[in-house]
């Protein structure tokens, strides 16, 4: 039987209350939402917090997908099932639905949340790459107020984020810019598995030129891979298959996969390249309002 080590459990009644509890426990407490990353980690003793602070009652504060001030704002407690079904996201950032269709399975998606996925910061997790590609910013709240950080600054290391012991991720903000197109491609061994490799791409096309681009990879390194070199190549260029092939070449060079049961290194580099090319091609086609 797999059971977590003993801990104390409490339910938060507000975000500020959850932060106060984190502060009071001084580094020994963890936030639990869907629990589909944390509970398995606790069963395996990879995490043994002494206190769990359950934020599932905070849907009124933390579960929403809304358009405001030129951004899409997603509350941290928004569940995968709601990201998958969101018309607002489908219209502006269809890569969310691409990814959500292949994240775990529908029953897990009923519980897991975007905040939990991002804070788990598992390199194989899809939403971290999705948020990196669309240049999301995340809002982190602590007792002294809020700060907003980019995904580059959010990802600190394997399973490590910029969220401090006494802070909570409250919101994900996606910029709304014209000419956006985006896509996520993933290869997995079987339905619901972690990726062997996955790529997220976003392009913003203005007047036939890529004004800006975001590309990120899952599962081919110890952290989510931000492909800065590919983004630089794409910026200012006209979208073309040759260009995307060059960006895909960078993906295979700039990732750092390990050999494991999911495949050897050369295969994963190859997949990173293929997934990147496909994601860019579809993102570009969507930006040009033509489904690939």
């Amino acid at each position, binding site marked *: 039987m797999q059971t977590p080590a003993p801990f104390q459990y409490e339910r938060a009644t507000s975000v500020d209350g959850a932060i106060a509890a984190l502060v009071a426990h001084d580094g020994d407490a963890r936030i639990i939402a869907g629990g589909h990353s944390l*509970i398995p980690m606790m069963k395996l003793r990879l995490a043994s917090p002494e206190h769990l602070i359950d934020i599932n009652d905070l849907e009124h504060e933390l579960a929403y997908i809304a358009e405001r001030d030129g951004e899409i704002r997603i509350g941290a407690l928004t569940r995968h099932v709601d990201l998958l079904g969101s018309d607002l996201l489908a219209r502006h950032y269809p890569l969310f639905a691409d990814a959500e269709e292949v994240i775990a399975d*529908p029953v*897990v998606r009923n*519980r897991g949340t975007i905040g939990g996925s991002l804070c788990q910061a598992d390199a194989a997790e899809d939403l971290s790459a999705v948020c990196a590609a669309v240049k999301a910013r995340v809002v982190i709240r602590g007792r002294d107020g809020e700060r907003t950080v980019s995904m580059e600054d959010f990802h600190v290391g394997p399973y490590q984020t910029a969220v401090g012991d006494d802070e909570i991720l409250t919101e994900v903000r996606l910029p709304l810019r014209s000419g956006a197109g985006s896509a996520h491609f993933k290869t997995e061994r079987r339905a619901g598995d972690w990726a062997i490799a996955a790529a997220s791409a976003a392009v913003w096309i203005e007047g036939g030129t890529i004004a800006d681009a975001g590309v990120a990879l899952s599962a081919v390194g110890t952290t989510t891979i931000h492909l800065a070199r590919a983004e630089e190549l794409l910026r200012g260029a006209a979208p073309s298959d040759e260009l995307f092939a060059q960006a895909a070449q960078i993906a295979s060079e700039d990732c750092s996969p390990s050999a494991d049961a999911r495949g050897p290194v050369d295969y994963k580099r190859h997949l990173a390249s293929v997934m990147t090319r496909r994601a860019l091609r579809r993102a570009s086609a969507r930006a040009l309002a033509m489904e690939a």
Partner: protein
Amino acid sequence: MQVTLTINGREVSRDVEPRQLLVHFIRDTPGLTGTHWGCDTSNCGACVVLMDGTPIKSCTTLAAMCVGHEIATVESLEVDGELDPIQQGFHEMHALHCGFCTPGMLMTTRALLNENPRPTDQEIRTAISGAICRCTGYQNIVAAVRWAAEHEAAFQQEI
């Protein structure tokens, strides 16, 4: 901690450790052993129950997290000796062999039909993609869900 859950419409209360998983609370306290404890890693779906009508994996949910919510297990399907159409469908179409996955399959597909009374085969397959049957009986499971959907539609027309 004292945990009081509403399971199949009945309040069940017990002093448990906060780390007790929902699947064990359900099986131990009211003795409802229909909910199966399978892979323990949220992969197999044998432990699926409904929380406020939504299917969840009870091996990856703490019992304490379910206080204030309605839990429904496979035992809630049959009422006064009448099988739920989804149970009848599994019977008619021979959709089980060893039966280990069946409680999770039934609750997962019951929830599907509540949301979507006429699912396509693809929608059925997607819905059960988090439920593993190692007797390789998916074909008959899909047929059973289709049977239930068709018979529920016919029943709705009668009334």
